[in-house]
């Protein structure tokens, strides 16, 4: 027996970073929206200063994500096993924007034109074998107005370098693209470590800047300023100073009276009508199954679940899964490759066990095509970050300098002498999409309800391995310039399973992509797919602001074209 919910104009699956923005834009335009969210509502009281609860035991992933962790394999002939990488996101109103570090970068213009620009400068031969690198079907200029909207709506702190019509500000990011508006707040407070690393980068001739972050550096939008507690990542803000979407765009959507939120609701499938149009979604809460009718459906969950939900939504019109009649769902999966380097600053107290992860110094000198790649063996790059917000357990699990034992009295002595003197850098490398790297449904592993989980097939290619070496050299140079006596690297090439892209790629051609430049499915015109799963490439920055800008644009498109997109 399925209960039928009151029909709405738009059903959004997942009220996170993307779904929250969509809900705001759509309700603001007068559409009635149902937000179907797997997690609960959380408030500031739910956020505690406890690394074990938040980080180690994944408290905020318990409602759903922990029961369906994707499996992983690098060999397409092998059986997939447990992922070697952290994979979890948050299930809650606000989604993973509840616990993110809130770094809010715009992508560089180059990112949207990556394939053309690589070919133009280095020739076709520079495209790595097997890669499916493409240009995006949207440009920086297409997204710019929406970047600006999101920065104002969620509240982003930062130092603008290139505001249209104004002289460049050297305190901002030298490589920043032109922006129509400045950030609504100044950058977060600097720290001793962030200044130390900025000075060292400047001496190297690089261009350090303070990361832009959706965290209040001063009171904004009725919410207070950050107090730098140091429990920002894997946790929500204890005083609502982070721009998580439940505190801004979702709140505004609810205030219109046109957003109904269904919490603890696990979506089973997107349903279709006789014409092959999306007709709504079926979800379960407790033991009851519900059908939410809608004239348009937006799937706005995390990368893995976006692909999974489409593949699970089989019908006679879509026998291989919804929007998959061209076999593109699950293709072009990418995860950031994240080189980590560590440095020992003997006798110094760096005070990194406080503050928030977004108080950092970054450089974009090795991002995009800001440097000549001739002879380097890779294309693209990434932002390099001098990290903050160390956590005791995470720190104690870091790799140690060569020769230092990992346990026993000698380790304890080293920890006592040096724990406050270790700094770390990491790079978010713009890893490429490849034919070999795909998502599908695992044939043998299921969640607790017997539903297949996603299986990741991911091979590390030469382009990424060359980039890893390059960034290790650059990062260890930066650490030594800042005073590190010893530097070392993580012994394995780290893949960031939570910074992942593709599976429902956007593009102009239905033969090579799933959705159009607005995120609407080529095969199913009233079905939108939102989130980083639509990204054709990873980009060398944190993805969330681009997810949100793209979503804002997609939702505006739905409003503007409502008569032609909506079914019924």
């Amino acid at each position, binding site marked *: 027996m399925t209960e039928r919910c009151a029909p709405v104009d738009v059903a959004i699956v997942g009220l996170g970073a993307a779904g929250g923005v969509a809900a705001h834009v759509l309700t603001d335009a007068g559409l009635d929206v149902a937000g179907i969210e797997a997690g609960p509502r959380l408030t500031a*009281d739910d*956020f*505690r*200063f*406890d*690394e*074990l*609860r938040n980080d*180690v*035991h994944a408290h905020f992933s318990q409602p759903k994500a922990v029961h369906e962790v994707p499996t992983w394999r690098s060999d397409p002939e092998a059986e997939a096993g447990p992922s070697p990488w952290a994979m979890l996101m948050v299930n809650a109103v606000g989604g993973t924007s509840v616990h993110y570090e809130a770094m809010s970068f715009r992508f560089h213009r180059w990112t949207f034109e990556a394939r053309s620009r690589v070919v133009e400068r280095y020739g076709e031969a520079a495209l790595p074998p097997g890669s499916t690198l493409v240009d995006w079907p949207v440009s920086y200029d297409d997204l710019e107005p929406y970047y600006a909207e999101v920065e104002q709506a969620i509240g982003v702190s930062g130092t603008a370098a290139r505001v249209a019509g104004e002289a460049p500000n050297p305190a901002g990011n030298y490589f920043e693209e032109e922006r129509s508006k400045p950030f609504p707040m100044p950058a977060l*407070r600097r*720290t*001793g*470590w962030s200044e*130390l690393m900025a000075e060292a980068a400047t001496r190297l001739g690089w261009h350090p800047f303070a990361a832009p972050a959706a965290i209040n550096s001063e009171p904004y939008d009725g919410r207070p300023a950050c*107090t*730098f*507690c*140091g*429990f920002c990542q894997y946790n929500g803000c*204890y*005083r609502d100073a982070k721009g998580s979407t439940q505190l801004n765009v979702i709140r505004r959507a609810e205030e219109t009276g046109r957003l109904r939120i269904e919490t603890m609701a696990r979506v089973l499938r997107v349903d279709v009508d006789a014409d092959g149009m999306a007709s709504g979604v079926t979800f379960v809460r407790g033991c009851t199954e519900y059908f939410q009718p809608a004239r348009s459906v937006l799937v706005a969950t995390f990368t893995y679940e976006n692909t999974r939900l489409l593949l699970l939504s089989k019908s006679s019109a879509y026998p291989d899964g919804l929007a998959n009649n061209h076999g593109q769902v699950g293709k072009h999966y990418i995860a950031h490759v994240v080189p980590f380097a560590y440095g020992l600053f003997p006798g*110094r*107290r*760096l*005070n990194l*066990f*406080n*503050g928030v992860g977004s*108080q950092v110094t970054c450089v974009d000198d090795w991002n995009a095509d800001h440097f000549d790649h001739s002879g380097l063996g890779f294309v693209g790059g990434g932002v390099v970050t001098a990290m903050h917000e160390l956590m*005791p*357990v995470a*720190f*104690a*699990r870091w790799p140690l300098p060569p020769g230092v034992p*990992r*346990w*026993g*009295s000698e*380790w*304890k*002595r080293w*920890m*006592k002498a040096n*724990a*406050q003197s270790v700094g770390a850098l990491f790079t978010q490398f713009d890893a490429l999409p490849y034919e070999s790297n795909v998502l599908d449904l695992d044939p043998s592993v299921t969640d607790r309800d017997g539903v297949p989980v996603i299986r990741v097939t991911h091979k590390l290619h030469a382009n990424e391995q060359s980039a890893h070496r390059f960034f290790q050299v650059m990062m260890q140079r930066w650490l030594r310039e800042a005073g590190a006596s010893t530097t070392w690297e993580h012994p394995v090439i780290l893949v960031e399973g939570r910074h992942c892209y593709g599976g429902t790629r956007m593009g102009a051609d239905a033969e090579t992509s799933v959705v159009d430049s607005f995120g609407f499915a080529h095969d199913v015109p009233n079905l939108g797919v939102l989130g980083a799963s639509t990204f054709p490439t990873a980009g060398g920055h944190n993805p969330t602001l681009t997810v949100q800008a793209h979503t804002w644009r997609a939702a505006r498109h739905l409003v503007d074209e409502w008569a032609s997109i909506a079914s019924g």
Partner: protein
Amino acid sequence: MVRDPLPAALLATLTAVVDRLIPDDENGPGAVQLGVVGYVERTLEGEHARHRRAYEEWLLRLDECAAAEHGVHFVELDVARQDELLRRIEAGTSAAGELQQFFECVRTHVVEGMFGDPSWGGNRDGVGWDLIGYIGPKKVWSYEAQQLDVVANDDRRLASGGPG
């Protein structure tokens, strides 16, 4: 939750391993003294339950290794021999190669208990944090406290698991 504690003999072996990973010495109390065994036991029946059976097999195997090499239980070896066996297990060069996985798992759990929030049973009174010079959770860090080479003067840590 169904209670499923480790048998006493295995718990004794586990305790001996934990005591070697973070011993009580001139740099402060060890993991056993700070309640870390209790943390591991507790989470093996909850958050780490998926490792519960493996722990039992691993600990038995560790004892078999000790018996095969020295004719006694692991707990009866002197600490030098315990350390020597653990080093080979860590390096994957012991007779029981599968114990390398055990070593990594138990080290992870011991580190959690040693440096995690005291409300979980380990890191008693925050003494694990003292080892690494971490003051503990605070709501507000001043500009001065975030400078290099200074120790925040207001070093009163919040009650564990705070705020809320």
